[in-house]
């Protein structure tokens, strides 16, 4: 079918046949107020906020439920429409408690936003408000329901019906007694439940984890990739840069999904969403050296001196490196250049994050690392990789290594004990504290993904970019800068000037990544070349 055009508010726009007027307007940067419409859900057309005037049609029409026609002329900003929309909003707010001071949605609330955009009337409602039954009722592990604040847009109902197909929610009763709830005795039992918090346009569904932690206007955002599994869902990291007295000093307070039609559409699983605390909790901030008589904290540069000495002393092929699939492509590439290519260190990828049987048919993957595919490509790993924990010992070779560098992973304790008993020097490069870090001879603190820029390759081979959100803690450094420091000390000519430059180097040297650039990764990532 031919392309055709519609005119919205005087702008002539090319439209896709079959699309709604609302979607067409939104795609072209014209905002028409709406509540019940969500691009990821079927149209319900019940809130009436999206009323528009269509020339030739006597009554106002809902933009979400009207399909574009060629030559259609639409107005969403004239007085007739504005007045109608103001009255719709007034009706929606009739029984609303307006308890914004205690409402976590305040600051990102559709009612507040549209009141300022099209409302700004004085309340004319003199009667008593109908007060719904329940304030603050938990309806699942992550979600808090406040029936009083609900505007009955049914987005949450449609989400549980169409996306998770678990049907936990419904609208009960009729008229102004209608209220949203889970079925009696039930609760939200799907693994994507917190998405209904995101799509609820008001404060009826709020997050129990985020509850009263911080006001949303304190938060800043950085685009990133969820580190929770190999899917690589697109997220925005919401962090609180200026007021550390909130949330017990945690800087990162939540992950929110960013739409990406090729990966996660609009959604995020609960496991990934609530994996954020590791960014601030139990972090390794300073290098530590285990000596006779205890552990001593030392500067990163002294730790690198020490590690360079050890690498120099055991360059006999008896050094091994356990990679991490939590590292970015850039970090892995630096490790490959220095450890594998220049020093000939044996590199293994342990799979400490595989939860067999945990995957579902939607987003969740069994592999709980964001960059296993990248690690496999960059280190040319074969069928038997990653190495299962029980086969790690065999993977390390007949003789145990003299020097073992472990990146982030927690070794199985029998193997750890065996290594220590055999006199292996254990070096832990990592972000968070664990038993292996506690037992290591040398600890080198690394930054987490949120503290640097880089790329991950998801399980399908989609390379996606993430940005720096919060500054490094203490002495923690990106892995590539650790490798850079080691190269300098060992007199090896390698330069890693920063993640963007490393990515350019990587695309030039590694076939699978050839042709990619940071520009081509914006906004939805790009596929590697399949071998």
């Amino acid at each position, binding site marked *: 079918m031919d392309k055709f055009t519609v005119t919205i508010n005087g702008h002539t726009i090319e439209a896709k046949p079959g699309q709604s007027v609302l979607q067409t307007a939104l795609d072209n940067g014209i905002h028409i107020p709406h509540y019940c419409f969500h691009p990821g859900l079927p149209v319900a057309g019940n809130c009436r906020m999206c009323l528009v005037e269509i020339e030739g049609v006597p009554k106002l029409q809902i933009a979400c439920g009207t399909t574009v026609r060629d030559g259609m002329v639409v107005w969403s900003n004239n007085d007739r429409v504005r007045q109608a929309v103001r009255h719709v909003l007034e009706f929606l707010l009739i029984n609303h408690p307006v*308890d914004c*001071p*205690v409402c976590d949605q305040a600051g990102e609330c559709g009612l507040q936003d549209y009141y300022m955009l099209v409302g700004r009337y004085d309340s004319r409602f003199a009667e008593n408000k109908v007060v719904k039954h329940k304030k603050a009722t938990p309806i699942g592990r992550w979600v808090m329901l406040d029936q009083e604040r609900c505007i009955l847009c049914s987005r949450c109902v449609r989400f549980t019906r169409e996306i998770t197909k678990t049907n936990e929610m419904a609208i009960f009763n009729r008229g102004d007694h209608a209220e949203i709830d889970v079925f009696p005795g039930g609760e939200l039992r799907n693994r994507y439940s917190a998405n209904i918090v995101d799509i609820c346009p008001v404060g009826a569904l709020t997050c129990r984890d985020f*509850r009263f932690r911080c006001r949303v206007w304190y938060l800043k955002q950085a685009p990133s990739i969820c580190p929770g599994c190999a899917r690589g869902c697109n997220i925005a990291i919401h962090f609180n840069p200026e007021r550390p007295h909130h949330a017990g000093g945690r800087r990162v307070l939540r992950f929110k999904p960013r739409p990406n039609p090729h990966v996660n559409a609009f959604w995020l699983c609960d496991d990934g969403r609530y994996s954020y605390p590791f960014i601030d909790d139990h972090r390794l901030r300073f290098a530590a050296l285990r000596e006779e008589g205890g552990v001593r904290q030392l500067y990163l540069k002294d730790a690198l001196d020490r590690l360079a000495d050890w690498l120099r002393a055991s360059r006999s092929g008896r050094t091994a490196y356990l990679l991490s699939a939590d590292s970015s492509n850039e970090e892995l590439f630096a490790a490959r250049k220095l450890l594998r290519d220049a020093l000939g260190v044996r590199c293994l990828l342990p799979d400490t994050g595989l939860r067999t049987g945990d995957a579902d048919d939607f987003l969740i993957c069994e592999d709980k690392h964001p960059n296993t595919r990248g690690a496999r490509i960059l280190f040319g790993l074969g069928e038997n990789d990653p190495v299962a924990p029980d086969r790690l010992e065999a993977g390390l070779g007949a003789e145990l290594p003299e020097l073992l560098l472990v990146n982030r992973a927690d070794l199985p304790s029998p193997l750890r004990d065996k290594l220590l008993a055999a006199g292996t020097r254990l070096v832990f490069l990592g972000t968070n504290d664990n038993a292996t870090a506690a037992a290591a001879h040398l600890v080198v603190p690394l930054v987490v993904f949120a503290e640097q820029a880089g790329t991950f390759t998801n399980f399908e081979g989609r390379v996606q970019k993430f940005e720096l959100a919060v500054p490094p803690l203490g002495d923690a450094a990106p892995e590539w800068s650790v490798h850079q420091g080691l190269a300098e000390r060992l007199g090896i000519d390698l330069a890693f000037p920063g993640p963007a430059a490393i990515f350019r180097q990587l695309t030039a040297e590694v076939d699978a990544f050839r042709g990619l650039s940071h520009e081509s990764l914006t906004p939805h990532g790009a596929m590697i070349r399949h071998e």
Partner: protein
Amino acid sequence: MAKPKLNLLERLYLPEILRGLLITTRHHFANLTVHILHRVGLAKGKRGAVTFQYPEDPRPVARRLRARHRLMKRPDGSTRCVACMMCETICPAHCIYIVADEHPDPRIEKRPKSFDIDLGICVMCGYCVEACPEDAIRMDTYITETSSFTREGMLLTLDDLMNHHNEDNFPKHTSS
């Protein structure tokens, strides 16, 4: 700027000191005389210099004076503040630090777990009072003496803000 040149008399120092003493003494006796005359009902038209015996004799202040903050209470004595952070947000000095908590009564929902104001930083602008949607914070205590030997001593806690030794002097609670 060039220093003014002193003449010989000024450079001798003592004559200038004596001149200063003379001025002070003259004021002293002039005022003494005027005040004694006032006491016996004479010389009403002539004003003497005024000295207030502060702090024993506090000065009257304007009713709208913005002084040390207090947090208002509900009838049951608990704080009226719902930890909405409006005051914390508006404060241009960033000197309010509130940590929110769940209120045991679900109809109130939210309350401050801690509420600190650092008077060492506060600029007494009163924005926090204006911003509060609950009339929970006021600056009508008329407490103007807030000094401390340490910086920590300038921090008002929730307890300081709720409990005052001179509560009877404050304007009475008007319910909203």
